[in-house]
């Protein structure tokens, strides 16, 4: 009985921690649902409730949300195609210069985004691919690819050698071993990498603000939100409503990914 009481006590404490951590998000939702005249009252809940801010924002920001979705999925595709095979090679195959590659992966993650943005800006303006979606996708993928490779490699090196040798004894080629043994086992890594690639692309502010300078053709939601900060003279209602809309993919993906987390981050496939 003591054990059970102790555990419930932890749950209560956990709820308190989580509430503290998520308070800013609650506050964002609260403000987005409060009437303009009441926003500065600082009520703890939207006492003077309205959804009007959302109506305003949806009229203006919908195309930007579309752009962000396209850029997000493009970045995921590029990242997975490059990272998954590379992770397998680094974890399980002989790769000449493996240390150098691992080192390079670490180092390129350290390159300040500002440096990359300035370099990309220079190159893109020369190539005339400023304000293009593929340009933004490639730039965004540089955030996710090194991370993706390291995540895959870390997970794949924990796959028992016996399992891969068994597949190869059955005559499976490296590609088959990869595609029908390693990749399915690494399903959770794929979710993790894909998730973060999407969210980083979705959230990207730096590349969007530099490689998309006032171009109307592509304007991701982060830039839509940023314009609000500048132009609307601190209209906090619509601003917070846009922020809530920009957070929706996070919410959706977290619910979807939670299933994978629940399935047991690494254990799932082999434990039983």
């Amino acid at each position, binding site marked *: 009985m003591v054990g059970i009481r102790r555990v*419930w006590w*932890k*749950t209560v404490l*956990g*709820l308190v*921690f*989580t509430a503290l*951590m*998520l308070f*800013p*998000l609650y*506050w*964002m939702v609260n403000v987005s649902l409060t009437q303009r005249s009441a926003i*500065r009252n*600082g009520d703890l809940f939207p006492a003077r409730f309205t959804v009007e801010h959302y109506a305003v924002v949806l009229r203006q920001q919908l195309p930007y949300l579309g752009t962000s979705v396209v850029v997000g999925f493009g970045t995921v595709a590029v990242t997975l195609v*490059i990272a998954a095979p*590379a992770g397998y*090679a*680094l974890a399980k*195959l*002989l*790769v*000449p210069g493996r240390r150098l*590659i691992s080192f390079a992966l670490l*180092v390129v*993650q*350290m*390159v*300040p985004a*500002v*440096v*990359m943005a*300035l*370099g990309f*800006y*220079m190159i893109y303006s020369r190539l005339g691919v400023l304000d293009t979606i593929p340009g933004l996708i*490639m730039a965004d993928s*540089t955030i996710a*690819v090194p991370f993706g490779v390291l995540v895959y490699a870390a997970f794949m090196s*924990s*796959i*028992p*050698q016996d399992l891969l040798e068994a597949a190869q004894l059955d005559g499976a080629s490296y590609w088959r071993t990869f595609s029908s043994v390693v990749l399915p086992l690494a399903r959770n890594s794929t979710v993790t990498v894909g998730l973060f690639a999407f*969210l980083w692309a*979705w*959230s990207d*502010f*730096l590349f969007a*603000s530099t490689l998309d300078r006032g171009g109307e053709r592509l304007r991701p*939601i982060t830039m839509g939100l940023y314009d609000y900060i500048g132009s609307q003279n601190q209209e906090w209602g619509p601003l*917070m409503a846009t*922020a809530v809309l920009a*957070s929706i993919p996070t919410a959706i993906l*977290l619910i979807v990914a*939670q299933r994978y*987390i*629940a399935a047991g*981050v690494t*254990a799932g496939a*082999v434990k039983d």
Partner: protein
Amino acid sequence: MAFRTATRAPQRKPRVAPESMDRRGQAARRNRRRMRWAGLAFVGPLLVYLLVFYPYPLYENISMSLHRFNRATFVTGQAPFVGFSVYREIFASPQFWPTVRQTAFFVIGSLVCQYVIGLALAVFFRRNFPLSAVLRGLFLVPWLLPIIVSATTWQWMMDADSGIINRLLGVLGLDPVWWLNADHSLTSVTIANIWLGIPFNLVILYSGLQNISPQLYEAAALDGATPWRQFWHITFPLLRPVSAVTLLLGFVYTLKVVDIIWIMSMGTGSSQTLATWAYAMAFGKGASAVIKYSQAAVVGSVLLLIALAMGAVYLFYQRRQED
């Protein structure tokens, strides 16, 4: 469970009788060769990607720092080569050392707080309790949200007149703080950045904890070790490699932070870091009214050097771990 704890498959030593050594040796060599080709094929796309997408922008950046670019020469591409003279200007600038100090405060303050809080939470969540998985998942939300969302929310919470934080201070009988003015903006953006970084630390440290065998704790508990002693004698030492990775990556991520600072304060006042300074000069916003490509590239190169130095530290650490 064994699967979880094995970080590396045991290396097989060739146990062969001397007489069959030659033939087996040949087969093994052939296998190794095949494996090497396969490895090259699988890692190929990454190699191409790494070679195209990083060195080129880096080269552009460094080249820009050695030429004197302005708006006109940027368009024509006729900027004169000036060696390190732009570097000398930046180092002599009255803004340089204060900015370095502010960057150090931002990075170290963020790292220490994020790590301590993240580790405490990881230990808290180590053993399952009702709702623990859900709560752990919810903790990720701040990390996954677009930074611009979090930053605007913090900006509003830190509003001097009607922000909730000053209201809370008022309830506690404290004076309101001008969070985002020149003097306090560094503290404010650091607080927001700590909040942003806690999930990252929690996730990595939590997964590190899962790789520590529960048997160790069981054995320690049988020997009567208190949770406190278990933490300092099992958790903390065994977590050291994971901690090193967390702090190193954290350092790097924090050093290059632009967006949270930019959105909250546009890098004005004390919140100007090397990264926001470079951004402001590169695109002529905020603290820099005019575009200064070369100066931005110089600050970028300084950031790059620090990053490379961290890479060297990490490699050195990794080598020593393996020995």
